[in-house]
């Protein structure tokens, strides 16, 4: 998976990468001399990175590519060798066949015993040989796993992490079948209420300190630490202080075992039943890439999905938990006209008829920067056909230093690029309100917004001859509407958003819409046809590609080339 923007201007030829030749499991490989560290800065390539390039994944717990290296779990210990050097001549010692003699790493005080080095923190050197599959390496892994398991409660059947647990996986791959441990296990606090969203089981913890490092070094909240010592070490928040910042749930993802669990998700669903769909978070303009976990048309969780151009491997708690409304019981399910249930065909025919015969300038459209770029493109086509002014509703909050954008709409740039709103979203709303007040605007089409909250009150809505509202949940605008068209959550359709930095990213459908609800693009196509605005492709792919061909900012971008990581457009 490439994170490079497909349409980025071709940079001048990159300087040739300096490489080192080493051996991994007996096979020569040239690896770059330096590779990015957790902050993306070039640092000497580690044995773990080199093994990865050679196709060998070195098992690990504490190591995480986006966190400072701790080196504490010792799971990544590997046996290695370096060219033997004649101390007197400073020249390599050769074997009889002329090849360089390799000195295997051994304990300095016990030369018959191999010594491992932690692959996560040990840089490679020219001529180094790494033995990630050697018997000594395997024995080291077995012994570390044995140590990790002796005091572990082995409560996998009731553990939320089961199925996505590194301790389970490594035990299968590298562990032993039986335990020699006959002593009493260490007992530690269970079900510790660490904060409003996190529960900690200290007995399951392998003390890798990923959560501590993430919270301190990424979030900048030095909230977690270890108390007691030795085998009684226990992860803890400061006494009397709740672990409560907007990124706490990332520690649940980071936790390789079932120690840190999400109060929102724990005991709700076995992870192996979850269908995983690539989505985009809709809670702000950052557009964090997410994996939607759903089962039988119910969304159970969001998890961050790695995209170094956007969110790295993190997302905020507020975005992550902003999914439950998708399954709300009061979702708009029915197409209604005058409060009575009707069919899509009847509704679209009626609306198209009214709009087509409306005098130019008498229709206004309020769209939403929560809509997909493709929908906004179609809304703009409709507006152009009707000569209608358009705008979207701005939504501002406070930005943080990590991910949260002050712009709480996921697609403000989509609204701008498609011409729905101007640079400053929302400045047309007072003019639309004035138009309704003075009678020039007599029809209003609203998508996904409650305009009564944004300067177009119920009194004004009451003056309209035609109010069409497409939305997901009921509100004062849908209550006042002559026609209600039930729409879809992002998780129920496909499309793209353009984030605050101009990254256009696609998302896929995780669950079916509720009731008669349909993706807005579908009925917009019918509406456009109904008012004689022409034919448009019926799929998200086709719509996107048509739009990209028309709007200069999207020049050269195609749906198929967006990939999972998106592409940059000029905003």
């Amino acid at each position, binding site marked *: 998976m490439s994170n490079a923007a497909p349409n980025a201007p071709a940079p001048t030829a990159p300087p040739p990468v300096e490489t080192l030749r080493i051996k991994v499991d007996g096979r020569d490989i040239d690896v770059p001399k330096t590779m990015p560290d957790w902050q993306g800065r070039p640092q000497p390539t580690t044995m773990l990175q080199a093994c990865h390039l050679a196709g060998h994944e070195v098992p690990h717990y504490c190591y995480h590519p986006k966190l400072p290296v701790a*080196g504490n*779990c010792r799971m990544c*210990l590997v046996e290695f060798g370096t060219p033997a050097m004649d101390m007197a001549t400073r020249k390599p010692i050769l074997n009889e066949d002329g090849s360089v003699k390799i000195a295997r790493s051994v304990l300095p005080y016990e030369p018959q015993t191999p010594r491992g080095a932690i692959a996560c923190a040990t840089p490679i050197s020219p001529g180094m040989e790494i033995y990630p599959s050697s018997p000594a390496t395997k024995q080291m892994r077995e012994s570390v796993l044995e140590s990790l398991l002796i005091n572990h409660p082995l409560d996998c059947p009731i553990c939320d992490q089961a199925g996505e647990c590194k301790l389970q996986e490594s035990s299968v791959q590298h562990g032993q079948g039986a335990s020699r441990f006959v002593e009493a296990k260490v007992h530690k606090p269970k079900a510790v209420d660490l904060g409003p969203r996190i529960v900690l089981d200290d007995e399951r913890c392998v003390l890798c300190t990923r959560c501590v490092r993430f919270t301190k070094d990424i979030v900048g909240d030095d909230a977690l630490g270890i108390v007691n010592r*030795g085998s009684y070490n226990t992860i803890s928040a400061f006494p009397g202080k709740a672990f409560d910042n907007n990124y706490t749930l990332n520690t649940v993802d980071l936790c390789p075992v079932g120690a840190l669990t999400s109060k929102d998700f724990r005991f709700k669903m076995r992870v192996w039943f979850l269908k995983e769909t690539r989505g985009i978070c809709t809670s702000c303009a950052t557009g964090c890439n997410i994996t939607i976990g759903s089962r039988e048309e119910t969304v159970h969780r969001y998890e961050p999905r790695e995209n170094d151009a956007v969110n790295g491997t993190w997302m905020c708690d507020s975005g992550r938990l902003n999914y439950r409304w998708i399954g709300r019981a009061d979702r708009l399910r029915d197409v209604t006209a005058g409060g009575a249930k009707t069919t899509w065909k009847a509704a679209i025919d009626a609306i198209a008829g009214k709009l087509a015969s409306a005098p130019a300038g008498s229709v206004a459209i309020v769209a939403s920067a929560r809509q997909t770029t493709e929908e906004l493109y179609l809304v703009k086509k409709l507006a152009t056909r009707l000569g209608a002014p358009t705008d979207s509703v701005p939504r501002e909050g406070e930005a943080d230093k990590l991910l949260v954008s002050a712009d709480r709409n996921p697609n403000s740039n989509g609204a701008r690029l498609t011409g729905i709103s101007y640079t400053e979203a929302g400045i047309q709303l007072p003019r639309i309100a004035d138009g309704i007040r003075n009678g020039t605007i007599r029809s209003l089409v609203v998508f996904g917004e409650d305009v009564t909250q944004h300067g177009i009150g119920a009194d004004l809505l009451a003056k309209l001859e035609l109010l069409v509202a497409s939305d997901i949940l009921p509100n004062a605008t849908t209550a006042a509407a002559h026609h209600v068209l039930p729409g879809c959550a992002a998780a129920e359709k496909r499309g793209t958003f353009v984030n605050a930095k101009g990254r256009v990213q696609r998302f896929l459908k995780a669950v079916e819409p509720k009731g008669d609800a349909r993706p807005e693009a579908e009925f917009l196509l019918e509406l456009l046809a109904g008012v004689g605005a022409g034919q448009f492709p019926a799929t998200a792919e086709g719509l996107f590609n048509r739009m990209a061909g028309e709007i200069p900012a999207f020049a050269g971008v195609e749906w198929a080339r967006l990939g999972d990581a998106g592409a940059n457009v000029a905003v």
Partner: protein
Amino acid sequence: MPQEYRLILKHADQPGYTPDLACYLRHGGYESLKKALATPGRDLPDGKKQTPREVVRDDVLKSGLRGRGGAGFSAGLKWSFVDRRGGKPIYLVCNADESEPGTFKDRQILHKDPHQLVEGMIISCWANDVKLAYIYIRGEMPHGARLLNKALEEARAAGFLGKNVLGSGHDIEIHVHRGAGAYICGEETGLIESLEGKRPYPRIKPPYFPAVLGLYMSPTIVNNVETLCHVVHVVRLGGAEYAKLGTPNNTGTRIVSLSGDVTKPGYFEVEVGKVTLGELINDPAFGGGLKTGRSLKAIIPGGSSSKVLKAGEKFKLRRKGADGQMTQVEVDLLDLPYDFDSLQQAGTMSGSGAIIVMDDTRDMVDTLANLSEFYAHESCGQCTPCREGALWMSKALHRLTTGGGRSADADYLRDIAQNIQGRTICAFGEAAAWPVLSFVKKFRDEFTARGQADEAARAKGLAKPGTHH
């Protein structure tokens, strides 16, 4: 007749010798500092010039001084590794966290002659361009900390410390930092973390070698109390003259802490390698022999983490003859010269210079259980093998000493220990594993017998209830 050779403790135990500045000055104190500051630069045969500081550093290297903390690493070499070009400040840290069971030598200096340490530190600071140094003193030595702070105040008032030391233009400040009672703070990178106000988790090496990325990520020298005191004498005598003390590659004197089953336990300063283990235990000048009617069973030669030596063991040592040829000689345990290299060749180490003597009344299973409990308690818990293994061994030994033993426990213990040594972040892994490995190997019969006895008792239904978990 072997005798003590008192260099560091020359004055400390004299009647009327007090730890204040006036007394130290009456006994020639701070003369080495003056000598160091007055050291001229010199031209080397190859045309290069040495600055006065380089001359002193070179002298320390030539003196052959080896660290007295435990590892016995060359002090001059350690100083030479310091990154002096990076532009960051260089720190000196005195490791006064003396905690190795059996060791009580540094506290003699701290309590009786603190100015000697202060002088050694000021010289070392000057020689290494250090402006700020710390003494990390064990939390359980509050009196030592008070004396050190008083000594520092006196030195400051007398112009030995602070701005413009003795008119040299060099500013040096030293602060005392008290630990909070953790053995791991004696590990130099754990000590540095603790000094920074953090949990004393030893750092991974690479990349955090103190000489490059030490205190506050700056180059740092960490030296033991006794080592820094020796610098005073290296400067006083000159490196070449100092190197004549002791034996080749094991130069100078060192203070030996002798404890356990001897009639006269105590501390003795000896020339390194000039006295044997047997002399230290049996000579009237030192331990004065075992108690009446007892015989020697075992010796822990260099602090509780060193591998135990069994009475009657013989060792093959490499000796350099007068002709420069290496020969191998067989040496009895009690004839082992007490120095760094001989004990290393005997498969153990002189460590912190603490000898623990055990006679035939000692039960090796009980002894090891006691030692293991200490290491299980003091493991910081940062890395997996030591965190889990240290307590595992301790629990197994507790079981073995309380009626729940198994005949296979010797191998069980050995296997656990082997999975710790060499696989941890710091040398604590070895410290926890080596006693177990050596006791189980050399006194295997005792461990097996205990286990078999317990198994037999259980078979007869005689096992004490609640002793097996």
